[in-house]
């Protein structure tokens, strides 16, 4: 198996070939294509929620109460007579936003930390990576719950806390990438022209490590979304009046005996989105030929 860096180095010779190859390989992977299409649909649907949702977010009809799916309410209504489809569309905005923003936080910290450690090497590298090792050993799930308890259930803190957990793997992958890229001739050439290390990192090294980072970003988003749903289910994540898929599942589980659709539709929304992201991530990994340490 050829290494990713080998492929990525070729990219310098013929800029588009790596990405064209990858796209062709991805298109052959039907599951990944289905995942990508489903994902685009979900993202479009939730971003357009205020325009396409059949009812207002806070519209309730206490006289109606919980009703099974019907022509007027495709996914049924909850005990307050709120339209479930509308709730799912708005909840999805939060679930996806948490997934993307927390992953972005993780990506920024992880890429910076990993590339500095990998580029500097030596003692700096040893200290920085030992720090990562120690954090790795901490039981983070318990810590996030603790943070949510101690500082109240605040969304910004949730983004930061989840992002702060997920950057560790990113930093490790980035460091390995940078270490091997650093040995390449083009980096040596850049160094010899007198460019500063920062410019070399941002202009020459990081762009060449983009493949693996895309793959791990795609695979991190579903695990972040799962974490958010987990916390919301326990009542420690998103708080009403805002809603998320995890919170909807938690409400649904309470009344599933009488109104099973309140559990099934939000559950399906979450599972299908996670499915799409994971299939797309796996497909991208094969297409970009990144060997996985997550597997």
């Amino acid at each position, binding site marked *: 198996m050829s290494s990713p860096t080998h492929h990525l180095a070729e990219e310098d010779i013929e800029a588009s070939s790596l990405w064209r190859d990858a796209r062709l390989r991805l298109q052959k992977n039907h599951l990944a294509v289905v995942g990508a299409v489903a994902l685009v649909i979900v993202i479009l649907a939730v971003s357009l929620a205020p325009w396409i949702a059949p009812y207002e977010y806070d519209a309730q009809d206490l006289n109606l109460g919980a009703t099974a799916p019907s022509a007027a309410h495709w996914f049924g209504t909850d005990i307050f007579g709120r339209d479930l489809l509308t709730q799912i569309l708005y909840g999805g905005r939060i679930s996806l936003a948490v997934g993307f923003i927390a992953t972005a936080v993780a990506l920024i910290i992880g890429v910076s930390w990993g590339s500095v450690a990998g580029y500097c090497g030596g003692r700096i590298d040893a200290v920085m990576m030992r720090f990562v090792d120690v954090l790795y050993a901490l*039981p983070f799930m318990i810590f996030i719950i603790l943070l949510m*308890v101690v500082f109240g259930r605040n969304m910004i803190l949730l983004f930061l806390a989840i992002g702060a957990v997920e950057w560790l793997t990113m930093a490790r992958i980035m460091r390995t990438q940078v270490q091997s890229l650093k040995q390449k001739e083009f980096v040596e050439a850049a160094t010899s022209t007198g460019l500063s290390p920062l410019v070399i990192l941002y202009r020459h090294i990081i762009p060449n490590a983009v493949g693996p980072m895309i793959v791990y970003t795609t695979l991190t988003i579903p695990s972040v979304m799962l974490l958010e749903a987990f916390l919301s289910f326990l009542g420690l994540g998103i708080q009403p009046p805002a809603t998320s898929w995890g919170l909807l599942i938690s409400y*649904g589980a309470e009344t599933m005996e009488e109104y099973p659709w309140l559990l099934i539709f939000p559950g399906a929304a979450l599972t299908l989105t996670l499915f799409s992201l994971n299939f797309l991530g796996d497909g991208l990994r094969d297409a970009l030929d990144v060997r996985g340490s997550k597997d």
Partner: protein
Amino acid sequence: MLKFILLRMAQAIPVVLAVITVTFFLVRAAPGGPFDSEKAVLPEVKKALEAQYKLDVPLTDQYLGYLADLADGDLGPSFKYPGRSVNEILASGLPVTAELGVYALCFALFIGVLAGILAALRPNTKQDYVPMTLAMIGICMPSFLLGPILILVFGIYLEWLPISGWGDLPGDKILPSITLGSAYAAYIARLSRAGMLEILSQDYIRTARAKGASDSRVVFKHALRGGLIPVIAFLGPAFAGLLAGSFVVETIFQIPGLGRFYVQAAFNRDYTMILGTTVFLSVLIVIFNLISDVLAAWMDPRLRTQFSKAK
């Protein structure tokens, strides 16, 4: 090997200390004291309570006192349940959670390793795709969704199994164990498939096959030890995940275990209980990571040189 174990233990100590320190100060930094409850408490009573729980001395003294108690294995009294110590509450929940965890892990290992081996023996055939698609479903279907669905189907519609409790009714341990274990079965299936695929392409496996060894002999006699190293290394992190997962599963099935106590303590703002449980669970997790690293190193001598390998 002994050197490896000692070094890994030495690495675990700062982690445990960091956990204790961070948790202690986080809990103390929390806005709102434990006695700022709904009922107005008389100032004298509040003062007496604070004296009883040693909250009236400087923070550093509280911290040192806590460390000293901890060294004796004393996690202090519970704020919420006067007269009960955190130790007692933990001791009543631990056996339940441990039992649940063991069942879930056995289920996960059995199903996961079996599926992984089957898939690796015939890669890119139906025998590979079917278990791996199921594994993907297992990963994407969170326990807090799977649990209620299992209850709905097997408990309410089919009425085959009890829907809650622990040890009261026959069969009430089945659904929680499956709910908790299935995601790990899925991860283990993927790990053992990848591990077995790598081992099965080695020369010594070809030699074994050339000598006429059957599939089962190749797998059990030659490939399993090497192929399962990723699974063994995953057991430490999996244990941590099982504990976190037990928060949800114990809440769903109303099981009186550690996870349920932790979530209740979190809602009750029972600070000593939160602190004690966090410290206790963290130490357990660090110990299990250590054991799984040592086991992996025992199975694969190459790992012994990589001291910093944490996954």
